C-alpha cells in the first residue's frame, strides 16, 4: 500500500506550516495590501496586481494549481526566483513524484519490453493460431509473464469458441438467458464470498482460480466493486490481476494515465509537467489507434518531457523520429512512388498518365501499386503527416504553405518509418529503399536528396520559420495568458523564439517579463480545462491518491479523456470549449464526490483541511477553509451562499433523510459504503468500512463546504 511519507501528501512539517499559513492568510492579506509591494522581488515592470495576486497568478499559470501553503513558500523564496527555478527542473528535487511513479513497472520499459511483457492482441492471436510459439520465459524468473501469456491465449481461444457458437442462434439465445437472472444470482453469491475476504486473501483466491473462472469472477463484479477490489490490492497485485483478467495492454494504459495524473498532482517540477501536457496536446497522439498504447509510454518519457522546456527544433525532430507519431499520422506507411523499393518489385513503373484540362496536359498524381504476395506491402505516398506538420505542428493553418508544399514534404519524409513489426523493436528506422529520390522544394527552398538528412533539414527549416515562431508563441500565450492574448505580447514572444533559436524557456521568460502577463486583464482570466480543474482540486485539498484510474474516468465524463483526442488537433485551450451545462454539472458532482471521499482511490486529508470547521460552522472557520482552497479568491457572494447553506437549521434534518438515499451516489464511480456524503452530520467520526488505513473522519459540514468551494465559479478559474 501507499506509504504516506513525503511532501505535499504527507510531510507533517509542511502540513502544519500549511495550516498555520492558512489561518493567518487572511490577516497576512491585509498586511500585504498596506505594504504595497515593498518587497525586494517587486515587479520588473509596472503592474496593477498586488504581491499576493502576483504570486497566485504565477502559481495559477505555471503549476496545476497551488497547494496549501505554497503561496507562502513562493513568497519566502521570491516569485522571480521561483519561476527561474521552475525553468530549470533538474535543479528541483522530485523524489516524491518519482516514488509515486516507481510503483508502475511499465513506465521504465522500452516499447519492446512492454509489448513483450504484455502481449498485443496480434501476438496473442498468432500464438493461439499456432503461427508463433510462446516466447522463451527462462527458468522460473518470470512466472507472471508466462501466466499472462497463457491466460491471454486461453481467453482468445474461448472467445473464438463463443463466436462460433454464437453463429448458431439458438445457442446465442441460451447464452443471453444465462446472463440473466438465475445463473447470475448464483454468481453473485460467489462474488459476495470473494468480496468478504481481506485483500490479500482475495488476491490468493484470484490466483488459485483457473483462468476462465478468474476472468468470469472479475467480469461479474459491478464496476464500483471491481474498482474497489483493485484499489485495495498492492500496485503489483493490481497490475497482475489486470493483466490476467483483461487485455494485457490495459495494464500499460492504466499505468500511463495514472502516472500522468500523479506527476501533475505531486511533482515539484510543476512547470515541466504543465509544458509536458502542453506539448503532448500540441503533438497529439490518440491512444486508441492501433498499437499506440504500446508506444505512448516511451513517447511521453523519451520524446516530450526531456524537451518540454528545451529547443522547439529538438522537440519537433524527436517527435518526427518517434514510432508513436510516425504510426499515428501514417508516415510509417508512406513510400516514394519512384523509390528503389517501388522500382524493384518486378512491376514496370506505370506509364506516365496525363489528365487533360483546358486543353493542357497535367501529370496524373499518385500512381498506385499492386500488392505482392507474401512480402512487404507496396504502398504509395501518404501526405497525412506532412500536412499536419505544417498545419498543426509548425507553421499553423495560415502559415502560407500550399498543397504542393505538403506533397513535397511528404516525399522528403518517405522512408521515415518504424522497424519491421516482426523484430518487435518499435524503433525509428530510415529505409532508404522507400525514400523518394531527388531534390524537393518546400516553401520555395530546395532540399537536395541526401536521404534521411533531407527530412532533417526540411524540419529544421520549418522549426525556424517566422510563421512557426508566431504560431507557437500564440498557442503558449493562450495557455498562459488569456484566450485572446494581446498581439503585441505574442509578437514579442515570437521575436525571442526567432532570436533564441526556438528556445522555449526563453520564450516563456519573455512572456513572464511582459506587462501584459501581469495585467489585470490576464488575472483569473483563464477557465480551467477539466484536467486542470481535477488536478487543481487534488492539489488544493492535499488529496492522497492510491489509485488514479477512477480520476481518469472522471475526466472521460467531463469530455476530456487523457490521450483520447482522435484528431491531431488536440484539445482546445479556450473557455468556450469547456464551459457548458453538462461539463459544469460534471464539475459539481466531482467536487462533491471528492470532498466526501466518494472517488475510489482518493482520500482528501480532511484532518488538515477541516480542522477549524466544526458543526457550528462559524464564519471564521469557513473563511479559513476558503482561504486554503481558493487562496482568498472566493467571492463575497459565493461565501455568503455557502455560509447560508451550512447555517440552515433544517440542514441536519434534511441530511439525515438523505443518508438513506442510496440512489444519490449511484452514478459516482465511488463505492457505496453506506456513508452518504451528507450522512456525517448525523454520524460524525464514522470510520470508513471496508478500507484499510483510513481513519480520518469526514463530517457532513466539512465535506459539503469543501465540495461547494471546489464547485464555485471562482474555483473554475485560474
Amino acid at each position, binding site marked *: 500500500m501507499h506509504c504516506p511519507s513525503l511532501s505535499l501528501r504527507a510531510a507533517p512539517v509542511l502540513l502544519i506550516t500549511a495550516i498555520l499559513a492558512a489561518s493567518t492568510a487572511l490577516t497576512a492579506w491585509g498586511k500585504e495590501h498596506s505594504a504595497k509591494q515593498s518587497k525586494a522581488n517587486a515587479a520588473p515592470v509596472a503592474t496593477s496586481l498586488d504581491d499576493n495576486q502576483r504570486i497566485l497568478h504565477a502559481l495559477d499559470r505555471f503549476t496545476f494549481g497551488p497547494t496549501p501553503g505554497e503561496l507562502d513558500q513562493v513568497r519566502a523564496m521570491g516569485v522571480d526566483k521561483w519561476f527561474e527555478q521552475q525553468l530549470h527542473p533538474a535543479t528541483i528535487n522530485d523524489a516524491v513524484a518519482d516514488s509515486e511513479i516507481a510503483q508502475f513497472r511499465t513506465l521504465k520499459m522500452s516499447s519492446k519490453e512492454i509489448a513483450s511483457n504484455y502481449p498485443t492482441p496480434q501476438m496473442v492471436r498468432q500464438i493461439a493460431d499456432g503461427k508463433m510459439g510462446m516466447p522463451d520465459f527462462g527458468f522460473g524468473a518470470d512466472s507472471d509473464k508466462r501466466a499472462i501469456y497463457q491466460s491471454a491465449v486461453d481467453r482468445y481461444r474461448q472467445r473464438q469458441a463463443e463466436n462460433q457458437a454464437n453463429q448458431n442462434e439458438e445457442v446465442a439465445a441460451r447464452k443471453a438467458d444465462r446472463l440473466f437472472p438465475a445463473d447470475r444470482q448464483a454468481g453473485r453469491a460467489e462474488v459476495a464470498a470473494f468480496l468478504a475476504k481481506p485483500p490479500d486473501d482475495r488476491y490468493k483466491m484470484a490466483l488459485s482460480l483457473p483462468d476462465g473462472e478468474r476472468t468470469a469472477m472479475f467480469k461479474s463484479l459491478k464496476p464500483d466493486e471491481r474498482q474497489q477490489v483493485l484499489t485495495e490490492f498492492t500496485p503489483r497485485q493490481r497490475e497482475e490481476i489486470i493483466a490476467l483478467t483483461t487485455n494485457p495492454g490495459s495494464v500499460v494504459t492504466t499505468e500511463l494515465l495514472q502516472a500522468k495524473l500523479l506527476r501533475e498532482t505531486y511533482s515539484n517540477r510543476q512547470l515541466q509537467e504543465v509544458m509536458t501536457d502542453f506539448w503532448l496536446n500540441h503533438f497529439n497522439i490518440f491512444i486508441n489507434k492501433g498499437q499506440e498504447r504500446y508506444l505512448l509510454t516511451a513517447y511521453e518519457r523519451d520524446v516530450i518531457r526531456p524537451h518540454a522546456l528545451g529547443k522547439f527544433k529538438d522537440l519537433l525532430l524527436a517527435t518526427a523520429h518517434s514510432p508513436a507519431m510516425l504510426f499515428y499520422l501514417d508516415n510509417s506507411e508512406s513510400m516514394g512512388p519512384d523509390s528503389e523499393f517501388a522500382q524493384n518489385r518486378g512491376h514496370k513503373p506505370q506509364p506516365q498518365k496525363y489528365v487533360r484540362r483546358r486543353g493542357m496536359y497535367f501529370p496524373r498524381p499518385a500512381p498506385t501499386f499492386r500488392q505482392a504476395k507474401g512480402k512487404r506491402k507496396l504502398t504509395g505516398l501518404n501526405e497525412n503527416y506532412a500536412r499536419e506538420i505544417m498545419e498543426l505542428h509548425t507553421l499553423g493553418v495560415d502559415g502560407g504553405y500550399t498543397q504542393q508544399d505538403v506533397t513535397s514534404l511528404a516525399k522528403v519524409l518517405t522512408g521515415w518509418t518504424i522497424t519491421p513489426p516482426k523484430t518487435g523493436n518499435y524503433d525509428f528506422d530510415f529505409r532508404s529503399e522507400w525514400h523518394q529520390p531527388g531534390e524537393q522544394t518546400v516553401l520555395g527552398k530546395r532540399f537536395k536528396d541526401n536521404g534521411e538528412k533531407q527530412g532533417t533539414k526540411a524540419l529544421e527549416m520549418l522549426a525556424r520559420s517566422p510563421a512557426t515562431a508566431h504560431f507557437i508563441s500564440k498557442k503558449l500565450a493562450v495557455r498562459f495568458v488569456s484566450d485572446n492574448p494581446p498581439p503585441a505580447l505574442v509578437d514579442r514572444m515570437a521575436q525571442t523564439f526567432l532570436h533564441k533559436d526556438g528556445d522555449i524557456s526563453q520564450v516563456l521568460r519573455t512572456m513572464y517579463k511582459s506587462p501584459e502577463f501581469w495585467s489585470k486583464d490576464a488575472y483569473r482570466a483563464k477557465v480551467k480545462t477539466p484536467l486542470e480543474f481535477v488536478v487543481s482540486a487534488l492539489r488544493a485539498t492535499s488529496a492522497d491518491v492510491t489509485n488514479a484510474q477512477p480520476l481518469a474516468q472522471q475526466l472521460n465524463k467531463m469530455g476530456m479523456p487523457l490521450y483520447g483526442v482522435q484528431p491531431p488537433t488536440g484539445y482546445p485551450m479556450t473557455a468556450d470549449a469547456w464551459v457548458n451545462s453538462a461539463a459544469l454539472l460534471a464539475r459539481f458532482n466531482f467536487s462533491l464526490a471528492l470532498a466526501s471521499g466518494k472517488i475510489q482511490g482518493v482520500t482528501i486529508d480532511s484532518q488538515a483541511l477541516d480542522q477549524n470547521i466544526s458543526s457550528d460552522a462559524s464564519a471564521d472557520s469557513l473563511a479559513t477553509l476558503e482561504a486554503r482552497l481558493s487562496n482568498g479568491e472566493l467571492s463575497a457572494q*459565493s461565501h455568503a451562499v455557502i455560509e447560508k447553506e451550512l447555517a440552515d437549521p433544517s440542514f441536519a434534518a434534511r441530511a439525515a433523510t438523505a443518508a438513506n438515499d442510496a440512489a444519490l451516489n449511484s452514478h459516482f464511480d465511488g463505492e457505496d459504503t453506506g456513508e452518504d456524503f451528507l450522512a456525517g452530520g448525523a454520524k460524525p467520526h464514522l470510520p470508513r468500512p471496508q478500507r484499510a488505513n483510513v481513519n480520518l473522519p469526514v463530517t457532513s459540514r466539512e465535506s459539503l463546504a469543501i465540495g461547494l468551494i471546489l464547485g464555485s465559479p471562482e474555483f473554475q478559474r485560474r
Partner: protein
Amino acid sequence: MSITRRIFLKNGAMALVATTAIPAFLTRAMYGIDTPTRFGGPKNGKRLIILFQRGAADGLNIVVPHGDPHYYQMRSSIAIPRPSSGQLSAIDLDGLFGLHPSLAPFKPLWERKHLAIVHAAGSPDTTRSHFDAQDYMESGTPGIKSTQDGWLNRALVALDKQNKIISPFQAVALTNAGLPRTLAGKVPAVAVSNLNEFGVGGMKNPSAAAQSISSTFEAMYAGSTDTVLHGTGDETFEAVKMLKDANPAQYQPAPGADYPRGRFGDQLKQVAQLMKADLGVEVAFCDIGGWDHHVNEGNVNGQLANVLKDFSGSIAALWIDLGDLGENTVIVTMSEFGRTARQNGNGGTDHGHANVMFVLGGPVKGGKVYGTWPGLAPEQLYEGRDLALTSDFRRVLGESVYRHLGNRDLSTVFPGFDNNPDKFLHLLG
C-alpha cells in the same frame, strides 16, 4: 407546407372532430399549432437535426455511382460491386446510384420517399484540412475564419423574435466533446453527453438534500459577476429542472427502434428522448467519427462498412423512435469533405472535395438523388483527383432553415452566400 398549415389553422375545430379521418401525425401537428407545447417550444413543432460525420466520409463508397464506368476504374480493390442478386453489392436506387450494402436500413426510408440524397455536395472551400473544413462548415462561412458563431445558432437568432417563450433545450448537442461550433453563438445551447448524469447527484431520484445542494450551486452561479460562468450556470439549472420533470431515466424507445450499441446510437436515442418528452427541442446536433480511412478502407466489408452499419442503423432507429414526430422533423447529414476518387496505395482514400448528404424527414420529397452529377471521368474531376462540387452545402441547409424552420433571413444565417429560394433544390415539400 405553409399551405397545409393554414388549412389546419382555419379548420382546426372541424379537424378535431374528424380525427379518425386524418392520420395521427396530422392531428398531432394540429394540436401543436393550437396549444403551446408544455415548455413553450415552437408552436409549429418543427425540428431540425444535424448529424456531422467527422473525419471526411467517403461519399463515393456510401452512395455509389455504380452507373459511372470510371468509378470502377479508379477503385480496383475498394469499389462496391454493381447491384446484383446474391453477393454483397450496391443496393440500386435509380440505375446510376446505389447504397453501400451497410446502408440497408435506409432502403425502406428511400422507398417510402422519406429519404432524399444530395450528391456531389459540400463546401466550396479548397482546404483539405479536417480542422479547417469542419470549422467552415460549422460556422457556415467557408473561407472566413473570423466568424465567431455557428450557422445553426444564427438560424435560431431570427426565430427568437417570433417565439417569445424559449426552452433551454431549444438547441441541444448530444456529444462527448462539449458544445459544437455549429451551435455556438448568442442563443443558449445545451451540450449533454448523457442525460442520466444531467443533474447534481444524478437524475435518478435525487434526494432532497442533493436538490438543496443543487440550489446552493445555482445561487452561487446566479450571484456571480463572472459573465461566462454566470450565464452557463443559469442555463444549466433551468435545464436540470425541466429534465427532471421529464424523467429521462424511465425512457423506453418505441418498439422496433433498435439503436445499435455505441456512442452514436446512444446520442440519437437521447435526441429522441428529449423530443418525445416535449422539452421544446427545435434543433439538435450529434456527430459520429471514424471516417478517415487512409489505410485499408475496405469495400462491402471492412472499416467503412462497419461505421456505416452504425450510422444507418442508428438513424433508422431514431426515425422509428420519433414516430409521429418525424412528420415535422428534418434530419440532415454532412461531412467536411469527400475523399479522393482514386484509391491510394494503402487501400484507402485521401482527403478530397465533394461528398454526399442525406436529408430525411416528413417534409422531405424523398426517393430521389438531387443535384447534378459531375461525372468521374479524369477531366471531370476536381483538380484531377476529387469529385467536383455541384451543390453547395449551404443550399441544402438554407432550404431547411428557410422552408422548414421558417427563418427567412438567410443572409444572416449564411452571410455572403446568395441563397435565393429560387435556387433551392426543392427537396422539401
